[in-house]
């Protein structure tokens, strides 16, 4: 779960920096694509190791949604579409909060 949170944070930070015009387009797009691919890879192995009683459906839907948001953000960088990008970034922040809550509940169950 730490890796999932880390990649969501990466996408969020890279996105905010791009909105502030402080990072190049290509770096932002590549970093968002890398975040998407890493989330996909981690997500594939994550559900095999979840403890019993975890709301895996919520986690799965949050992860899928955030991956889609990150992929769309990467495309919007090329189109230089800031308003839609900002909306997606806000949604990604909400996903991030949800994933953190689920991570806390997983940690509590493991203890």
């Amino acid at each position: 779960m730490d890796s999932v949170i880390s990649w969501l944070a990466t996408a969020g930070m890279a996105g905010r920096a791009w909105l502030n015009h402080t990072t190049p387009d290509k770096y932002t797009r590549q970093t968002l694509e890398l975040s998407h691919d890493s989330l996909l890879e981690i997500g594939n192995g994550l559900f095999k190791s979840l403890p019993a009683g975890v709301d895996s459906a919520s986690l799965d839907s949050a992860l899928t949604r955030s991956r889609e948001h990150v992929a769309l953000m990467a495309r919007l960088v090329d189109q230089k579409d800031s308003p839609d990008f900002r909306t997606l970034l806000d949604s990604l922040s909400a996903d991030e909060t949800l994933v953190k809550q689920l991570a806390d509940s997983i940690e509590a169950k493991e203890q």
Partner: protein
Amino acid sequence: MKKILQLTLGIVTSVGGFLEIGSVTTAAQAGARFGYQLLWAILLGTLCLIFLIEMSGRLAAVSKHTIVDAMRERFGFPFFFFVLIGMVIVAFLVLVAELGGISFALQILTGIRFPWWALPVSLLVWLLMWKGTFSLIENGASLLGLVTISFVVAAFKLGPDWSSVGSSLIPSLPDSDKANYGFLAVSILGASISPYLMYFYSSGAIEDKWDRSYITMNRIIAGFGMTFGGFLSMAVLVAAALALRPKGLQVDTFPQAALLMTTALPRWGFYLFALSMLFACFGAALEISLAIAYFFAQGFGWSWSEDLEPSQDARFAFVYTIIILLAAVPLMLRVDPIKVTMLSMALTSASLPLAIVPFLFLMNDPIYLGKHRNGWISNAVVAIVILISFVLAIISIPLQIIGG
């Protein structure tokens, strides 16, 4: 006047040349994952490096021998050859990592993927080695490396809690993730106490024709230069602890590390990070390539000097040519430079006894150093840090491998 200028330049270049991909990556990973808790490892590594660099310069100034010369002479060729193999393998991996750092810095600036940069970057490093002089390599890249001071600005701007920073200088264990913590401690020590720096420094002292009159200057350069350099590493860790850790961002890849200064310095942070890595890794790549060539040439008794024309020390020039070109190959094959960095730093720690123990024997030998041989404090500090580093390495490297 000439010595004051040399002293100033020595300190400035030590600061500018201190950071490289190993110290930045390990400190950023440590800060992002464990907050300030691993600051003690940087302190310990820097302290040990101050002593080792001072010893390297003193050996050269008093005995007119580089470390390699003296080691071969004192312990014989078979033992030297054993050390050579170990040191060259580790230094080669570090060189791959540094070339990777330059290539990645260019990737984040241009968008062109790092494998495409590997060969042009290697050729540029080689060209500077081929055409450049020792002072160009020693001073040029290190002066450009002063851009790394931006890490200190970033750390201060983030407003660290100084009492927590201070208390982290005393070692402590985390509540969880102890294997990773140990591995990072080992990697930080490996990044700080790089033996190639000693070989480079002692060879440089011979290139610059140091004699006994340089002993005080050597002490000041080693003390101030390495101390300020250590502050730079600590600044990277503090900046990562304050900018990345609260968000849960871990530094597993280079593009993630590039976000390190965007919180503290929103407008220029990204570009300052890229330029810092570009210049710091470039300087380190030049120094490592030279250190490997020195190692071979001094060990085998060939003529050597970066100030000679390549035709006058052909075998010396041949070694760095081959090494630099070979180091580009793993990068062209898309080997991840961050993984190579972490592996090479941990291996550096594990191999420290091989490089340092014979060196300590040399530094206590009255034939080489007369009344300037080591006192018990320098022996004790270096021996204890090397022991800690070695023990941590043999425990944490297997644990890290098992834990994936």
